[in-house]
């Protein structure tokens, strides 16, 4: 199955339930359920950074690569971040049957700090 570019809309930060930067658990970073009250830093950070990305960065900075029409994790399903390279900020966000490639050095640094 091949990847296909697909424009995704940023999530609503309020609905995503952003957790305080200082206090996420390791689990909530790596795996944030998309259900109410359970979203982790990964999903929340996507929502925070997306508007800035849309306004100020190249399109390649954020590319959603779904294999199925569904483009978001249904309630209760995991959202998983694979931080591929801390220095460049390249990371993959997996949700449902989609993979979104992000390049966000600031978020990457926060994730790396939280994971220590």
């Amino acid at each position, binding site marked *: 199955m091949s990847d296909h570019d697909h424009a995704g809309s940023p999530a609503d930060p309020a609905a995503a339930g952003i957790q305080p930067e200082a206090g996420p658990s390791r689990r909530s970073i790596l795996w944030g359920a998309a259900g109410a009250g359970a979203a982790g830093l990964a999903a929340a950070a996507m929502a925070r950074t997306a508007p800035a990305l849309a306004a100020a960065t190249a399109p390649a900075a954020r590319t959603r690569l779904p*294999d199925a029409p569904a483009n978001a994790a249904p309630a209760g*399903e995991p959202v*998983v971040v694979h931080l591929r390279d801390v220095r460049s900020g390249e990371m993959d966000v*997996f949700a449902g049957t989609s993979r979104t490639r992000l390049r966000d050095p600031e978020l990457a640094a926060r994730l790396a700090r939280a994971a220590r």
Partner: protein
Amino acid sequence: MSSHREAPETSKDPVADSTDVYAFVSPDSPKTVTLIANYIPLQGPAGGPNFYEFGDDVLYEIHIDNSGDGRADISYQFRFETHLADPGSFLYNTGPIESLDSANWNSRQVYSVSRLENGTVSELGAGLACPPCNIGPLSTPHYASLAKAAVHELRGGIHVFAGQRAEGFYVDLGSIFDLATLRPFENLHAQYGLNVFHGPAAGVNATAALNVHSIAIQVPISQLTRHGAGSESSPASVIGVWTTASRQSVRLWDTDNGETLSSGPYRQVSRLGNPLVNEVLIPLGKKDLWNSLPPSDDKQFASYVTNPELAGLLPALYPGVFPNLAALDASHAARADLEAILLTGIPSGIVPGFQNYTGPVLADMLRLNTAIRPTKKPNSLGIIGGDLAGYPNGRRVFDDVVTIELRAIAGATYPLVHKSYVPDAAAKAITDGLTPASVPSGYLSRFPYLGVPYSGFDTPS
């Protein structure tokens, strides 16, 4: 083996490990083709209490290429769900399972079938029951009729079955993986100076008491070929067939809930077309890569097919037995016969009255000429045995693919493309010593054709 535990990664993931693919014109319904993909190898029938099941988190597919590009034009997709009637019990069943809706059956699977074509998915069936595993005379009495009830008829004249079957692929694993020993010729093996073999011996079927899980679908030929039914000489009559298993990219062990979570796009982890290609021809360092790719990408592996490692080993392991093969190996000539059999199909004019050529794209697929009718008295050696309805024209459940491919690699088929070559006498005799009669369960004369699985009670080890 055909493709059981053939690659480092799939050997650790049995539910996604494809073991055999079959494709043949149905002998009792010759306007249809039967496609079978087997998974979960080497099942000891007594393997409870968690008896074998398909993976709920695996996407199983059987693909059809009817345009010769090594890419799927049609894919049948199978997705499974496991339901526990009583999570508080450790038992697979709490009494005899005498019907597919038995209240005594605790852990059962259902599945959906979809057809993907031109980017459109059509669901053909959902909530279809699998049969239970064959446990024994108390748990699964009347097993044959119970499993028969799990053959489902779908719209469009399609039949499907998904569940346990007796392993129909026969092979002497114990000898072949002991440095390519073939028991009928073991006294001719170099034996590394150990002199443990002193005479020929009978082959031993290593899979004789083992089960497998089959996904079988029987489809009218007109739904698979480009232009409906064609003639034997028409390229449009030929289809390429292979199976894949895919998993979502991320698997995460959720310790809070004690379960595995999956996320992300599905990615192919297992592939199988012709028997023994990834098993015997592709080197260890590339097997996992091969499993992840479509047949259309097989050009990069072509040298492993046209100059197979095993062809070089036979003259060394059996000194003096394969002198002509040794000379052929030394010439470094590309084995165009193996390329035709495994990667392009056999063009017209090579075997009288036969072709299953799909064009120049090098792609490992089973190639079935759907216009060739089933043989009334089949020969398990297929085309090299004079039976045009057998392997490598597709593959029937009883075809002796080990002997066919051993003989081909040993040079028996090289004269098809190089008429002056004289195969060694041994190339026409080489075998692991097994036949369809080596399968104790036998085969069925009707869909799904593979035999009733061995029960755990009767086959405890």
